[in-house]
């Protein structure tokens, strides 16, 4: 009965001061909304990156020179196509091995130009990484063997260079050398703000000739089975170490890449959410403030209630409930706002956003906790008021 009265009185107090209550809630609303929104963007980005990494193809093993660690300087690759053959022998199937030698270059077609990434690759690339073409064909073994000057364009390169023409069969100039377009990739979209369709594939032999190098930057292997992927990596690294005793090599799996990316994105999301949480804290201080005003305003009511038998705790609960209602109503509104904004961002901008239930539960819990933490002092003050003094208050 007493608790029901506390509810009734708390709701009544909020209703009686609608504008003031809403303004007080605003701090909590903004805080919760931004936490929900930022967590949604963080989660969405993480999911997107995971999908893309998984979309590269399953059981992928990337072999690069140097250590894969934050802060280590990139190493100039000593790898050549001979090493690629050696790796193919370790794997036992050349169709499972892909390479890349990449460099930025200006692509021109007529008057149009586009600065893009030119990748020298083997014909195995679409098998190792799951990639599909929108038009034309991919490179063949013959193209590679004869260093034929043919190119497959990424979607955005094709759009930039040939906005109103079919690129197939057309000429493009890469770093001053003419290539013929034989295919266009299906679009991939963006990842962490990087346009994944901004690339041109040419035969690795042609690329090496273009840049006057024998170098291969990295090797990718599609492992035959998942269980022995780590063991295969070790064997490849051992073989490469034997061939290049001065250089260290690393083999990383998709899972490891996902783990590292996930950690980075998780920390980033956490930091952003914490910054947004500060506004929640400021909102809480506002609640505390307004509750003290509320206690002062209703001092005589408190005195009267005490006179007719309210215990200190009855009064305290009543004001604590008022504070918690303020922050939880604010929290729910903020959640709705945050979810709405996140859905809009996801739909209307390239930034992905995904709502997770735990973030909503957390937001609600935190806003209730803010109410308790910032309401307890005003509530205690109300509960301890001397009834005689309270009844005499103005």
């Amino acid at each position: 009965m007493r608790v029901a009265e506390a509810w009734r009185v708390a709701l009544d107090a909020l209703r009686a001061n609608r504008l003031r209550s809403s303004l007080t809630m605003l701090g909590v609303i903004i805080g919760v909304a931004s936490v929900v929104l930022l967590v949604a963007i963080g989660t969405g980005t993480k999911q997107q990156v995971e999908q893309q990494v998984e979309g590269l193809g399953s059981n992928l093993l990337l072999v690069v020179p140097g250590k894969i660690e934050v802060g280590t300087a990139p190493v100039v690759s000593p790898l050549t196509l001979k090493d690629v053959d050696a790796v193919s022998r370790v794997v036992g199937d050349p169709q499972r091995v892909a390479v890349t030698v990449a460099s930025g270059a200006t692509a021109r077609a007529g008057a149009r130009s586009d600065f893009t990434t030119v990748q020298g690759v083997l014909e195995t690339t679409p098998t190792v990484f799951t990639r599909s073409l929108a038009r034309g064909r991919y490179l063949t073994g013959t193209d590679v063997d004869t260093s034929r000057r043919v190119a497959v364009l990424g979607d955005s390169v094709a759009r930039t260079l040939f906005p109103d023409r079919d690129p197939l069969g057309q000429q493009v100039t890469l770093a001053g050398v003419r290539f013929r377009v034989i295919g266009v990739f299906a679009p991939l979209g963006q990842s962490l703000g990087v346009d994944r369709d901004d690339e041109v594939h040419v035969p690795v032999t042609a690329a090496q000739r273009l840049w006057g190098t024998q170098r291969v930057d990295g090797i990718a292997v599609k492992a035959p089975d998942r269980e022995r992927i780590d063991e295969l990596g070790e064997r490849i690294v051992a073989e490469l170490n034997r061939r290049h005793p001065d250089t260290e090599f690393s083999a990383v799996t998709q899972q490891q890449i996902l783990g590292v990316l996930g950690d980075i994105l998780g920390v980033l999301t956490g930091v952003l959410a914490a910054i947004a949480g500060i506004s929640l804290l400021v909102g809480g201080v506002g609640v505390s403030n307004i509750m003290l005003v509320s206690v002062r305003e209703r001092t005589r009511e408190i005195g009267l209630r005490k006179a007719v038998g309210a215990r200190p705790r009855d009064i305290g609960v009543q004001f604590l409930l008022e504070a918690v209602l303020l922050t939880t109503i604010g929290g729910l509104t903020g959640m709705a706002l945050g979810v709405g904004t996140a859905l809009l961002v996801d739909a209307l901008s390239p930034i992905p956003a995904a709502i997770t239930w735990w973030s909503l539960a957390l937001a609600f819990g935190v806003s209730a906790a803010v109410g308790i933490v910032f309401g307890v002092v005003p509530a205690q003050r109300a509960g301890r008021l001397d009834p005689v003094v309270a009844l005499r208050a103005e």
Partner: protein
Amino acid sequence: MTEPAAPARDGEPPGAGSAGERVAAIEAVDVSRTYQLDGVSVEALRGVSLTVQPGDYVALVGPSGSGKSTLMHLLGGLDRPTGGRLVIGGRDVNTLSPPEMAALRNETIGFVFQAFHLLPRTSAVENVALPLVYRGVSARQRRERAAAMLGRVGLGHRLDHRPNQMSGGEQQRVAIARALVTEPTVLLADEPTGNLDSVTGAAVLELLERLNAESGVALVMVTHDQEVAARAARRITMRDGVVVADSATDAHDRPLSVDHGRPETLVPAPSAEPRSVSGSGPGHPSGGSGGAAGATGRLPREVDADGPGVDRPAGAA
């Protein structure tokens, strides 16, 4: 827990000091109350002893600042004495925690204030039901009992009116209903007609007297109106924080010299020169006058002392 005033609780023999076989509703023995105000002690009560019996009708009179309200707060368990012993409904308030005091007020005391103190934006019936909330009575029973009580004070047709939709007299009657809905043993009214015009005030007074007679609730009422005081069965006169006369215990003057009265209180007391006592209360700013004559039981006509800016029933003079 919800029963009003089980008298002999805690093995405390209530009213043990009093002679009668009746159980005292409230017993104060040498009660004092000292306020600390910016490091200065204000002795509002300096050793008050009195007993309120069930069904009593007591008028508490005395000049402004003499400690009447302070005493009422103590008798109602709203405040604690700084010295002496105070037993309310058989319970020594010095042994009670704040929540126990709250329960004691809820069970044994009803308050009526000069300023009504109704909750705004709250209907009459809900205002009256408020004490029952803290007693744990169900909502339906609360409304039933509150409505019945409003009927008894003549407001059965005003159940859902809010305070700002009622006259002062009606508001005070709602407050009286609220005070009585818990069936307390004592009704404490501190200048209940102080904010009302004389006609309305007289009606409220009549209501209080009727309820006192009908239900047997003890009525202790502070009044500045000597005519009203004369109607009461018993009259207690205070000055400077002490009881200078109590018609229940003494037919004659209380021997002030042996009590705590300061020397100057001796001067005006018996022979009633009312105006001369004004300002004799310890530092009361309103400087109300009169009231001293109660000590002899005689009532000078012009003695009714007005508080600042408050209407008094015209019939008092």
